[in-house]
């Protein structure tokens, strides 16, 4: 069976949620892999939401809200833009492929754009495959994987850099 990615979407109530609603009532065809979580504003979306989604089995995440200058609360999306600009770089640096997270602006009238965002994200994440690397960090059974290796063994293993050496350089 083909891999069907699980995508969690965090969307703002005023624009993207309404836009997704419009996509539905317009009977637009789109991938059914996305689970939407509605929030008041993109400014309410904490980076921990993305981390938690990955922890609980998501393979990809969509964060979407009002276009700049359209925020119902005037500036929530501006604040979100700053935070996610940084968080995206942080994820990349820590080895989480940033292609797993889509950030977009979708207004209440852009049902078609929402359809495109969903379809593109699902296709991209399907290509990247399941995010087992994250799901199995604690070796539990969200995806039915093998238990993770003993962390202390992993730390001294051959494939990871010598911790002491890294420490010296890291100073």
């Amino acid at each position, binding site marked *: 069976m083909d891999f069907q990615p699980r995508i969690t979407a965090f969307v703002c109530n005023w624009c993207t949620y309404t836009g997704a609603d419009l996509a539905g009532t317009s009977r637009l065809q789109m991938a059914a892999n996305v689970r939407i979580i509605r929030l008041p504003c993109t400014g309410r979306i904490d980076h*921990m939401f993305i981390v938690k989604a990955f922890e609980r089995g998501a393979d990809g995440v969509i964060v979407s809200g009002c276009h700049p200058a359209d925020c119902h609360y005037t500036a929530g999306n501006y604040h979100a833009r700053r935070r996610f600009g940084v968080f995206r770089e942080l994820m990349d640096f820590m080895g989480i492929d940033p292609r797993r997270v889509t950030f977009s602006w979708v207004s209440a009238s852009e049902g078609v754009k929402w359809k495109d965002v969903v379809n593109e994200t699902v296709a991209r994440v399907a290509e990247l495959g399941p995010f087992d690397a994250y799901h199995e960090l604690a070796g539990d059974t969200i995806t039915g994987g093998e238990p993770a290796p003993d962390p202390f063994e992993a730390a001294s293993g051959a494939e990871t850099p010598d911790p002491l050496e890294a420490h010296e350089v890291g100073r």
Partner: protein
Amino acid sequence: MKELRDLARKLLADGDAGVVIGWEEGRRGARPAFITTPDDADKLIFDARCVHNLANYLNPRKPQVKALGKPAVVVKGCDAKAVAGLLREAQLTRDRVILIGVRCGGVVQTPEMPAELTEATVATRCYGCDVREPKLVDHLVGDAQPEPPVTAALDRRIAELDALSPQERWQFWTGQLAKCTRCHACRQACPLCHCERCITDKTQPQWIESSSHLRGNFAWHLTRAQHLAGRCVGCGECERACPVGIPLSLINRKLQLVVKDLFDYTVTDDPEVPAPIGAYAVDDRQEFIE
């Protein structure tokens, strides 16, 4: 040194300060000292081994320091940035603290090392230092110091990591974070981790798993880094406090570079300049948003 001791003695004798927080000679190199009587002022020292960021003791949630009275703190330029951070975030008011600035020619990596600055011993944070003479001070002591030796080791290491694929970086960081025992020494040592209740201590809902498995460790270190983005002064105390040697300075420095690139912001010792997260500009960059 005499200038510093005389000043400390005067502040304590006049009753301007209840305690002078500086450095003294310890059994293993320089260590923080709390001087409460004028007679003890001669214990104070300052040299390249005075690594510690004493701004940490100005954290309003450290009652044992508060009990000593109004503090006079000896600060290097980088420490003054942390004080500015506390002022900016309303954790401190300027009249509640006396700042004694010292002209600094760079510090070594750990206080146990001999006070000789070479390219191999100088702390990585001294690279590109722009505050060798702190500005946010009440008193400035010491002679002008020569430039510290240049070491771009940290930026070199970041460039190496950036050149890897996400999978290889993941491999590197899972190896590093697997060592984390979640002792939270990084948080305790940080002068800017001053939340009344840290999110990692909250259990309802529990955003960050407290067990020290990799999943909890990733959540913690991502959050710690994100919460310090644009605020971290790069003093490196978190990494020095880490008992298992996780190179946290790499993450902090990376985010300093990101913030510089995205918002053209560098952490400053001017408390009037707002931090980039919490502020915004209408024309912020948004290439990453579809």
